[in-house]
């Protein structure tokens, strides 16, 4: 066994792996300027808070009646307040209780919210109903009124007030965790863990908590900022513990002397504002870094690097019917499609593709995922995703080179001359509009016909594509029809403006076989009726055999073999085409019944 060469200690500890994942987020945060600044401020604040009693130049609680409302000076760096306390010392000493109170509120909110969110998200049932109801109730309560009422009952204890505030804030955590857990609960890997015999506690700690962790941390930073602001507000109103210095209390004192010593307001306001702002910014930076994970950085303007195009001979079958074929509609020569990379180079995904389609011909473009078949189709339509461009060759359609047209000119062609049928019917219909409005709008724009005429045409088309009750489907929203019906609707839309070229990208892949057969029949009939040229992109040899006159086989961005469908199916010549045909199971023998020999391995 080859695996035996690996020493057993080479297996990394589960713990260390999770730590590295954590550390990388922290490291990313250190590269984010906002993250570094806010984190640095908070760290300094915590350090100042810990050493406040040592650092404070004066006793914060000693009131000196002879020194009230002093301006900042050498002795009193930030001046004194209305009772003659040193402002700087009081600011420093207030840090610790402020942060403690915020931590308490966040802690209570997080423990309550996350626990309830996990249980209700994972198990659902009555607990979900009860906890969602409670969360809504808590969110509906006016927080400050509840805190005032609580203060009346439990007295001026900031700790208990913060516990109550934590409870009020807990729905924020509950909502986030509940949503995340309900989403991840149906992931197949959670099912697989269940089938593996894992207990619920283990599934939650292993598969569910990891998903919840990041949003909970982000939320905690934001909630801490709110807690500090509310706490300062209560202290400002004089509802807190008056025996200790607090930022809110200092603000209150300064506020009463706003006309004699306005500068006094600045210091506590600055402390509160900076702390809240850095907590919020930290939360934002954390979110940015988590969401950015895996996406490359900003794309630099390209220096149009060299495009490497591989040219290899294409196996071409003779086409005896070519001479009899109709007018040539599309002629693609040496097409190359490239994507600009961040480092200025170009990644070529389609190399040297040449093909031609005549009126009344269905040309199949077949290949496996990543072969460049869809990229070729999108290049012809001028719809390459951002960063992609035609890097070479020409696309001659009715005498004009599409590759040289402007985006505006291309828009005029799409829909009118070139139509498109996508793979996923549902995601290509806008759920907010009725099917009728989505079919009639292009007709009104392109054919410049009125609403009534467009409606009449649309109903005829819907009937033509085999929709049993056109009137009802016309008025329906996409979610009210099945996938097969939605695909018929898109086909109706594609042919609605009498296009010359129809590009169908895996038009039946998302459909059941019986529906697929009907849609293939429909495409065949429409192709003859409208005398279109069709470019059919697919990975299914059955579909090609059913519909296509000519076939091009693609591999790694190149056409390796092309010719009439019958000729290629009868005599595949390129090794890759042969390997694909060998993988087809259609003509393999059925396995037959279980034999006794198979029973005793």
């Amino acid at each position: 066994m080859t695996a035996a060469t690996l020493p057993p200690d080479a297996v990394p500890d589960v713990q260390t792996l999770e730590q590295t994942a954590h550390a990388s987020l922290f490291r990313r945060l250190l590269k984010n300027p906002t993250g570094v600044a806010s984190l640095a401020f908070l760290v300094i604040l915590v350090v100042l808070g810990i050493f406040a009693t040592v650092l404070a130049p004066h006793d914060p609680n000693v009131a000196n009646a002879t020194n009230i409302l002093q301006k900042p000076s050498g002795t009193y760096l930030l001046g004194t307040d209305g009772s003659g306390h040193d402002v700087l010392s009081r600011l420093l000493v207030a840090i610790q209780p402020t942060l403690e109170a915020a931590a308490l509120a966040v802690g209570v909110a997080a423990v309550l919210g996350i626990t309830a969110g996990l249980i209700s998200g994972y198990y659902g049932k009555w607990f979900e109903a009860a906890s969602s109801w409670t969360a809504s109730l808590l969110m509906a309560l006016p927080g400050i009124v509840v805190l005032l009422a609580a203060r009346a009952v439990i007295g001026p204890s900031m700790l208990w007030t913060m516990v109550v505030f934590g409870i009020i804030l807990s729905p924020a955590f509950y909502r986030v965790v509940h949503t995340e857990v309900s989403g991840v609960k149906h992931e197949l890997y959670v099912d697989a863990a269940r089938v593996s015999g894992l207990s619920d506690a283990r599934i939650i700690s292993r598969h569910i908590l990891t998903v919840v962790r990041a949003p909970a941390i982000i939320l905690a930073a934001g909630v801490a900022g709110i807690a500090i602001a509310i706490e300062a507000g209560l202290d400002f109103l004089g509802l807190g513990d008056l025996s200790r210095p607090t930022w809110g209390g200092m603000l209150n004192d300064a506020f009463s002397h706003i006309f004699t010593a306005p500068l006094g307001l600045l210091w506590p306001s600055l402390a509160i504002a900076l702390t809240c702002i850095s907590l919020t910014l930290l939360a934002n930076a954390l979110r940015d870094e988590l969401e950015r994970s895996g996406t490359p950085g900003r794309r630099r303007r390209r220096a149009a690097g060299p495009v490497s195009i591989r040219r290899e001979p294409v196996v071409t079958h003779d086409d005896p019917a070519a001479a009899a074929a109709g007018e040539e509609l599309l002629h693609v020569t040496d097409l190359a499609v490239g994507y600009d990379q961040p480092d200025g180079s170009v990644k070529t995904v389609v190399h040297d593709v040449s093909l031609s389609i005549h009126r009344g011909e269905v040309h199949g473009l077949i290949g496996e995922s990543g072969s460049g078949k869809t990229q070729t189709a999108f290049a012809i339509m001028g719809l390459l995703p951002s960063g992609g461009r035609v890097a070479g060759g020409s696309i001659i359609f009715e005498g004009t080179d599409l590759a040289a047209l402007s985006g505006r000119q291309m828009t005029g062609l799409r829909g009118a001359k070139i139509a498109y049928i996508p793979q996923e019917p549902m995601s290509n219909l806008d759920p907010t509009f009725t099917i009728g409005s989505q079919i009639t709008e292009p007709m009104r724009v392109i054919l410049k016909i009125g609403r009534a005429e467009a409606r009449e045409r649309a109903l005829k088309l819907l009937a033509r594509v085999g929709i049993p009750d056109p009137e009802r489907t016309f008025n329906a929203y996409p979610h009210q029809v099945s996938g097969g019906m939605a695909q018929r609707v898109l086909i109706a839309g594609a042919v609605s403006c009498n296009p010359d070229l129809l590009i169908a990208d895996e038009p039946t892949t998302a459909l059941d076989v019986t529906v697929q057969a009907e849609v293939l029949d429909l495409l065949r009939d429409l192709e003859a009726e409208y005398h279109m040229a069709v470019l059919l992109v697919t990975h299914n040899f059955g579909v090609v055999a059913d519909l296509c006159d000519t076939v091009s086989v693609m591999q790694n961005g190149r056409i390796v073999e092309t010719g009439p469908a019958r000729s290629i199916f009868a005599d595949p010549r390129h090794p890759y085409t042969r390997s694909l045909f060998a993988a087809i199971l259609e003509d393999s023998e059925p396995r037959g019944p279980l034999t006794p020999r198979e029973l005793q391995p």
Partner: protein
Amino acid sequence: MSERLLDVDNVEVEYHGHGLRGKPFKALKGVSLDIRPGETVGLVGESGSGKTTLGRAMLGLAPVTGGAITYNGRDISHLNRAQRRELASDIQVVFQDPYTSLNPALTIQQILTEPLTVRKVGKAEAARRVRELLDKVHLPPDAGQRLPREFSGGQRQRIAIARALALSPRLIVCDEPVSALDLSTQARVLTLFREIQDSTGVAYLFISHDLAVVRHLSHRVAVMYRGEIVEWGDGDQVTAHPQHPYTQKLFLAAPVPDPVAQEKRRADRRRLQAALAS
């Protein structure tokens, strides 16, 4: 030959409707089949036919509201979580989507060790077993250190197969395990399935919408339609001489990868359609 590993007897699965007045939905309406040790039973049907629900009912992931599923003579249709956990080493699963069936945050090592830790297998022993499993599905031994996103669809499906094999089960429910894969990848993964069956004697319930795949792999085939099994028998009989009109329609709808044969099949299908309509 009469020995049965798993027996599905007149099983019904009913889901609650949405809301208080939602109509309950019957996903399975009295389904019966059986699986023998070392056998592959193919389950064919279109979307919504209930084939996935039947697999999930065997795994204890769908509520059995009628009938019984018997494994090795023991009724397993209403087990609690603890009893189900014991069954984990007997019945396992490979899901369709290789992208969502592996937790993206865990390494392959962690994914494959997961079922073993439940069985209280020691760390060194688990590591040895993981290397053995990776070898069995033809992945390099250093694959364990990597994350799922570093693997292609076919390789991920191999990892999912390795996870199912970790506890040496006697039955694996394979829910469309190759439908998300490319043609050539699909052929290699199917070969792996057969190879594993030959060496371990595991039985498969092989759920697929692709008739060619099912015929290639299955000893016996069941055809499902709207929550019922409409045809059930030896694979070569059902696939070569389908009796039920729905099975005939289903088989004729699948296009043959041969223009000449497909033309004939298309004509046959139209004839059947005309016959059914009249």
